């Protein structure tokens, strides 16, 4: 059965797409115009593009990564990481203590994410309301938006048997009487292969790449791929345009630039990159909030060797989670942690484990008996958990993320919970992924060893696939850059619609929170912009129309 590639077919049908690697500029920089320009095509950008296009507005989407589709997804890490991830999946905090996964291709992180779809926890929403003056985002107010996106993206509870990696998480919870939930996933006709993280080869994952972005393009929107937004031109309370720079096949900057002009601009480059673009452009930030309070759900890992085969590479990567420990001590109390499992593929496991030589080779030889649990720590609520801070650094940026005492307390508790769970599920040996502990042979032994183990940056493996915050929302301008609709407090025609607006982390995987909130905010924006909308036929053609030197701030 041949797999239909909606991107390939759409391009053949005449979608307006401009590839920065192929773009031929002229002497004078040219400009493109639309009602709305959206920077970034991930969870936030994709949803906004579809909603605004459907409201009859002309839309230009900009993505610094390439346009790749199922025919490029060969289920190999060596292809996927450089093609689809920020910094070839080797992004790290400044001190190198935390490895960060973030997508960078059309569809953003949704092209490579693991499809777990969870509504924003009620505790998180309540905390935002009381601590950050966020309004209109109660669980009740969000419910219709979550319903809308769950139906749009075919989000439903995974109806098949979990793979054994997840199955052991469930078994451990059952044995111990711990809470667990069968995960809802955004998939349609999933083949249960386990390669979500390398781009879905069969287009079952309802990522932005195969849902909202094709819908927007089919309705006349324009997509610029391999174009990076580099500068927001602004004056007083208005944005005048955004410069985008073409990138070549290797994503190195090319000299070609375009000026994008619109009635309204939406930043959706994701946490880290949206604040970086705003800082680089010198946007008003009197309280110095940009890039601060960047959250990661910093995650620790526990391996377990089972006698039976686990084959953690095969099957839906995430289908069970446990919230037993997320809210145990209240939102602002000790940092809670969510228990999940990751997909198990060779590069991921080889690099996120410990040691080298014989000991590592032995671990890898047990590859198919290996079960891995991860604990995602809920950062940003406790007073000593302020997250990381992004700052400009010459041409690029850096993210400093101090791992503070409350994080290490949570990590220690998490290592214990994971070991207890893995032994309860029948593990023969458990290996906390932190230097100096080694294999543990019983829960008894593990309990003592973990209470005593030393935990430290660069000794304990810490990873993140959930980047959030850095451009907080809320009605209190001393704490927020944008209001509860994502509208800038300082620039009247600028909104932020991505994970960077979260004032804390979520305590749940982020994608559905972004989908729901952006659906709400983009619908409100469409209501503001659409009545005066120009007729769609004035939407820009793929060939940019030269209109002289772009207007800049006076």
């Amino acid at each position, binding site marked *: 059965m041949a797999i239909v590639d909606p991107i390939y077919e759409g391009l053949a049908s005449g979608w307006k797409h401009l590839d920065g690697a192929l773009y031929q500029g002229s002497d004078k920089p040219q400009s493109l115009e639309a009602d709305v320009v959206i920077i970034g095509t991930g969870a936030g950008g994709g949803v906004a593009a579809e909603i605004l296009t459907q409201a009859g507005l002309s839309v230009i989407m900009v993505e610094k990564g390439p346009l790749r589709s199922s025919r490029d997804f060969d289920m190999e890490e*060596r292809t996927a990481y*450089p093609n689809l991830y920020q910094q070839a999946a*080797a992004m790290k905090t400044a001190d190198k203590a935390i490895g960060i996964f973030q997508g960078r291709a059309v569809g953003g992180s949704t092209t490579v994410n693991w499809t777990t779809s969870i509504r924003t926890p009620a505790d998180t929403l309540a905390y935002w309301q009381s601590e950050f003056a966020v309004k209109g985002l109660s669980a009740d107010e969000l419910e219709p938006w979550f319903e809308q996106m769950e139906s749009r993206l075919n989000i439903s509870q995974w109806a098949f048997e979990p793979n054994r990696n997840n199955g052991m998480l469930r078994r451990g919870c059952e044995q111990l009487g711990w809470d667990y939930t069968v995960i809802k996933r955004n998939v349609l006709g999933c083949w249960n292969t386990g390669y979500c993280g390398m781009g879905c080869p069969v287009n079952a994952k309802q990522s932005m790449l195969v849902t909202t972005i094709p819908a927007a393009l089919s309705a006349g929107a324009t997509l610029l791929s391999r174009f990076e937004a580099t500068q927001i031109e602004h004056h007083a309370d208005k944005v005048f345009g955004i410069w985008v720079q073409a990138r070549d096949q290797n994503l190195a900057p090319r000299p070609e630039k375009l000026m994008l002009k619109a009635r309204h601009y939406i930043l959706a480059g994701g946490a880290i990159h949206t604040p970086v673009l705003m800082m680089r452009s010198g946007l008003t930030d009197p309280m110095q909030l940009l890039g601060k309070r960047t959250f990661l759900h910093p995650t620790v890992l526990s391996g377990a060797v089972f006698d039976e085969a686990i084959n953690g590479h095969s099957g839906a990567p995430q289908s069970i989670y446990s919230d037993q420990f997320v809210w145990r001590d209240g939102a602002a109390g000790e940092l809670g942690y969510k228990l999940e499992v990751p997909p198990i593929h*060779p590069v991921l496991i080889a690099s996120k484990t410990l040691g080298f030589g014989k000991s590592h080779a032995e671990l890898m030889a047990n590859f*198919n008996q290996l079960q891995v649990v991860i604990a995602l720590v809920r950062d940003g609520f406790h007073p000593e958990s302020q997250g990381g801070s992004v700052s400009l650094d010459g041409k*690029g940026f850096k993210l400093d993320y101090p791992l503070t005492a409350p994080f290490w307390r949570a990590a220690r508790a998490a290592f214990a919970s994971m070991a207890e769970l893995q032994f309860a599920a029948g593990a023969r040996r458990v290996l906390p992924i932190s*230097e100096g502990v080694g294999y543990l042979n019983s829960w008894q032994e593990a309990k003592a060893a973990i209470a005593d183990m030393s935990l430290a940056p*660069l000794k304990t493996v810490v990873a993140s696939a959930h980047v959030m915050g850095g451009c907080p929302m809320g009605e209190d301008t001393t704490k927020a850059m944008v209001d509860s609709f994502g509208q800038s407090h300082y620039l009247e025609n600028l909104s932020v619609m991505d994970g960077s607006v979260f004032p804390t982390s979520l305590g749940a995987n982020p994608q559905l929170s972004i989908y729901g909130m952006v659906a709400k905010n983009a619908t409100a924006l469409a209501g503001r912009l659409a009545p005066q909308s120009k007729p769609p036929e004035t939407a820009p053609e793929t060939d940019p129309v030269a209109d002289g030197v772009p207007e800049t701030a006076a």
Partner: protein
Amino acid sequence: MNRRKFLLTALGGTAALALGVSLYQPQLDVEDDGDKPHRILFSLLMPVLLEGALPEMAVPREAAVNRTLDAIEATISVLPTSQRDELEQLLDLLENRLGLLLLTGNMTPLLLRSPAELASQLESWRQSGLALLNQAYLGLRELVLASFYSCPEHWTLLNYAKPELPGIKS
């Protein structure tokens, strides 16, 4: 100023000291291997980092080493500039030190230095309390292990293979 000298100077005190390189060491030319930089260095480290994973038999071992050297090059080539520069600095420093020892004849030529000695060097960086040494260890470890396991040729060890899906490129 040649690139290697520049990098050494630019790195300044901390990095050089932490890596055990005296700032006053004379600059020495290390064989550069033309378009295949750092291959000697990696072919020294690889048997150590991949002990137990590389085949024992000469012919398949050589194939695996060469395959991994190519994969390392490919991995480095896709890193963003800032990370690549950092890594190059580390590799340059290592080569400089290896070159020095090799050429001054203070020790057994490094090319013949025992894997056990290299292993204990890596192990001491791994255990060190200095972030810079930990970073050097982790950087080399991740680069070599990830590159080795990124090659389908090396997956038989793991009994891992990607599924064959009808109509999908393999």
